[in-house]
């Protein structure tokens, strides 16, 4: 296949070398897109591979005649080659069976045509016996040759010419049976195309040489551009050297364009070919250079309506075919304006910032950056087909592989669920919708001694009994409606006992059937803990009640203590008031009674002060710090007794203190204790002629004691004596704060000890009390 894709088949081989890269008709540039699917791609590729080679079949033309092509030049001369290729394409398209004969006259190498006689001899030898049916000449030398030697070589045979400049019928010299296409450059078409690309154009600067043919061209340009004189002015550069020409072009400004027509030689005699001239002009010109010669395209010109050798050749071939069909050239008129093609160079359009969209309809564009696909379409199609097929195969392999992996995963997953199911620490069952055991985990089988086959048909409710079984049955029915739930019941285990369980159930789909997943938890321990918790709660509640009761009692005690104190305070206050009122109201004339009242007022005041002091003492006791230490109680008691007895010089008192008694206690508090107890003993034994006061340890009671032989009291009051302000005797008999024993009891209580009294009226009293670490050293 061809290296370059063209709309017209077989075209590219015959293009000038400059255009080998690309050529595409702008308006019909096909859009190709990759088909998405493999099968679509397959069809596409098949179409490209097999249908394309057959494409381009023209009309069936079974011309039997042979065509002799006379090429003025040599193989390798672009213009001539393109013409030849066009001719061949035309003949081929018409399915002409006989191969055309091609002769090259080599007039470039031998411009003086001195070899023509030899060619004549050669051709006579070649064609005398079987002359061609039509002679097609290309360019002036071949036309001249054919006319000159027609009689010797091709008498009576029609001649078709192409590439003849400025053809005049007179040139035929009376020869008939001749037709052809003039080599007429399309100057007007080129300038009109330039105007559509650059509407701002006001001047066309024409570059041509001053050879006879150049001057002829100048006249043609003038003639052809005359109709455009309203829009543009045309300026012909005078005869100059190439350098001068280039300098003149360098001064051109926007609004001008350059039209390069025939230019073979400059004023200095320097010869230029088309591409060289095109390159020089366009390099120096700041404005676009247009031309009518296709050979210049790709070498710097923007483009134009170009005379293309190939197109010309095709036209010639078609004329030859027409002549063959008619058997003569007489009825085939000469073509004055041969086909030209609007062709442009993309790179130059870009250089002069001319938008591609301004190109006239049907223009061809070279040097357009092409997609890789554009250049290698078929290869790509085939490659895509292969890729498609491979991709499809790959997809199938991947899909198959994924299915296999998924199947493996599912298998693994089901296996791992099986493992989880079998190894769960709680018994697990799967039940059908009626509660029959479908599956039982190993723990479940062990716990409930379920056999292999006979176990499978059992109902879960059979594990429970009586009311439990009925409740479980309705719970399972509820699971089918609600999806999940918890239920507590008792299950019978083979050892004969019934264990409390909690069943967690969930409706599931098992092997396509509605089923129930049941996890059974042995809650014996939990029940045990719950029972313990309940007991603890009860105990706690009991304790709280007890404590509340105690506190209530304490509150009540405190309240009654307050009333007791208030009474102790109010009593002397009342006396103060009473005696004061007496003084105020009645005793003006009775000085003795007035004196008495005043004295009682003093006593009542003192009493009041004493009560207040004792209350303060009790209060301090409650706040005092408590720091126990070993105490020698014997020496402490002896000291206190000695102190107090010293204050009663007129009494006879026998004090007995046991030796070596020690105990742990707070020094100040225990001392206060003994002060009160010994003081009481001395006080209440005051009536005795021989008072006895004793301190010691009673092993029988396991307690320390303070004993006296005083007035004693009724044991009915044995506990009341420790309440504050309780008086068992008339105050006048035994004065005191009424708070002493309450203080003692409070101190012993603080030490964690106990205090009690034993007494009888008029037979003395003994106060027993305990302290920690009591020792008796004797």
């Amino acid at each position, binding site marked *: 296949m061809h290296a370059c894709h063209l709309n017209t088949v077989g075209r590219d081989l015959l293009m000038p070398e400059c255009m080998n890269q690309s050529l595409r008709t702008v308006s019909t540039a096909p859009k190709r897109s990759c088909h998405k699917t493999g099968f679509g791609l397959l069809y596409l590729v098949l179409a490209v591979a097999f249908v394309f080679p057959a494409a381009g079949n023209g009309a069936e033309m079974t011309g039997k005649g042979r065509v002799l092509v006379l090429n003025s030049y040599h193989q390798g001369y672009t213009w001539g080659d393109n013409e030849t290729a066009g001719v061949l394409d035309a003949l081929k398209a018409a399915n002409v069976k006989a191969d055309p004969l091609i002769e090259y006259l080599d007039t470039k190498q031998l411009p003086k045509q001195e070899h023509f006689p030899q060619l004549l001899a050669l051709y006579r030898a070649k064609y005398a016996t079987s002359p061609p049916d039509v002679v097609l000449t290309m360019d002036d030398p071949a036309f001249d040759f054919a006319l000159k030697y027609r009689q010797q070589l091709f008498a009576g045979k029609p001649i078709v010419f192409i590439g003849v400049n400025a053809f005049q019928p007179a040139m035929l010299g009376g020869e008939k049976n001749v037709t052809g296409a003039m080599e007429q450059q399309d100057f007007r078409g080129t300038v009109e195309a330039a105007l559509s690309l650059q509407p701002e154009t006001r001047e066309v600067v024409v570059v041509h040489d001053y050879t006879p043919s150049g001057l002829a061209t100048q006249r043609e340009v003038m003639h052809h551009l005359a109709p455009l004189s309203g829009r543009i002015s045309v300026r012909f550069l005078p005869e100059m050297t190439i350098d001068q020409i280039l300098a003149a072009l360098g001064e051109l400004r926007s609004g001008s364009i350059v039209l390069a027509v025939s230019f073979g030689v400059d004023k200095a005699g320097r010869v230029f070919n088309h591409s060289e001239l095109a390159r020089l002009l366009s390099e120096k010109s700041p404005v676009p250079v247009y031309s009518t010669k296709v050979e210049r395209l790709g070498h710097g010109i923007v483009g134009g309506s170009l005379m293309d050798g190939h197109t010309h050749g095709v036209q010639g071939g078609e004329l030859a075919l027409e002549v063959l069909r008619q058997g003569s050239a007489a009825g085939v008129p000469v073509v004055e304006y041969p086909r030209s093609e609007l062709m442009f160079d993309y790179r130059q359009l870009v250089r002069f910032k001319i938008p591609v969209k301004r190109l006239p309809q049907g223009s061809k564009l070279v040097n357009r950056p092409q997609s890789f696909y554009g250049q290698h379409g078929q290869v790509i199609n085939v490659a895509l087909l292969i890729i498609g097929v491979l991709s499809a195969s790959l997809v199938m392999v991947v899909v198959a592989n994924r299915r296999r992996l998924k199947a493996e995963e599912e298998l693994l997953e089901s296996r791992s669920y099986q493992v989880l199911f079998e190894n769960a620490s709680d018994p697990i069952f799967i039940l059908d919708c009626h509660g029959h055991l479908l599956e039982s985990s190993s723990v479940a089988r062990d716990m409930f001694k379920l056999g292999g086959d006979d176990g499978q048909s059992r109902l879960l409710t059979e594990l429970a009994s009586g009311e439990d079984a009925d409740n479980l049955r309705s719970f399972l029915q509820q699971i089918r409606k609600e999806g999940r739930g918890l239920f507590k019941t008792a299950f019978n285990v083979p050892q004969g006992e019934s264990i409390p369980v909690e069943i967690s159930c969930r409706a599931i789909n098992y092997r396509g059937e509605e089923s129930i997943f049941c996890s059974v938890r042995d809650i014996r321990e939990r029940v045990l803990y719950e029972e313990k918790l309940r007991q603890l709660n009860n105990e706690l509640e009991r304790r709280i009640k007890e404590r509340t009761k105690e506190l209530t009692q304490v509150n009540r005690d405190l309240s*009654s203590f307050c009333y007791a104190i208030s009474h102790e305070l109010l*009593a002397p206050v009342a*006396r103060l008031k*009473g005696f004061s009122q007496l003084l105020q109201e009645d005793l003006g004339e009775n000085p003795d009674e007035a004196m008495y009242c005043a004295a009682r007022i003093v006593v009542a005041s003192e009493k009041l002060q004493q009560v207040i002091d004792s209350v303060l003492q009790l209060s301090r006791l409650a706040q005092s710090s408590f720091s126990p230490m070993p105490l020698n109680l014997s020496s402490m008691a002896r000291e206190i007794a000695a102190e107090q007895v010293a204050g009663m010089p007129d009494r006879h008192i026998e004090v007995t203190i046991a030796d070596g008694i020690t105990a742990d206690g707070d020094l100040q508090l225990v001392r206060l204790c003994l002060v009160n107890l010994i003081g009481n003993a001395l006080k209440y034994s005051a009536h005795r002629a021989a008072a006895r006061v004793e301190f010691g340890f009673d092993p029988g009671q396991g307690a320390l004691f303070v004993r006296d032989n005083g007035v004693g009291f009724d044991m009915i009051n044995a506990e009341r004596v420790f309440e504050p302000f309780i008086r068992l005797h*008339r105050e006048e008999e035994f004065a005191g704060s009424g708070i002493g024993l309450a203080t003692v009891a409070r101190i012993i209580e603080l030490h964690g000890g106990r205090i009690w009294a034993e007494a009888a009226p008029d037979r003395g009293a003994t106060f027993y009390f305990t302290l920690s670490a009591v020792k008796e050293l004797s």
Partner: protein
Amino acid sequence: MIPNSLLLVEDNEDDEYLSMRLLRKVGFGAITVARDGSEAVDLLLDHDQPLPELLLLDLRLPKLDGLEVLARIRSNERTRSLPVLVLTSSEDPSDRDTCHRLGAFSILRKPLQMSELEQALALLDARG
């Protein structure tokens, strides 16, 4: 109007002095004094002794306290309807409740005041 005989139960000498001083001023003639609860009960329940027309009772008393005395005379046929005026420095509501429950006619605050005593006597008289 003024009762002919009265028993005053009072352990404190000062209080006794003040009460006696006022009672005489009001006009009481036959006044007996008991120095503690037991003595008072013994006097009241002794059939050989004349029953006073009015009892003036302290609450804080040695041996038997005032409330106990009140309870005993209320449980005895002879003394059940004896009018009792309680004379105390106690502000304890439970004491007052017990006094009312046991039928004390009135509770008077120490020191005894002329106006209060006369008012109580007037009420007693009105009750009949």
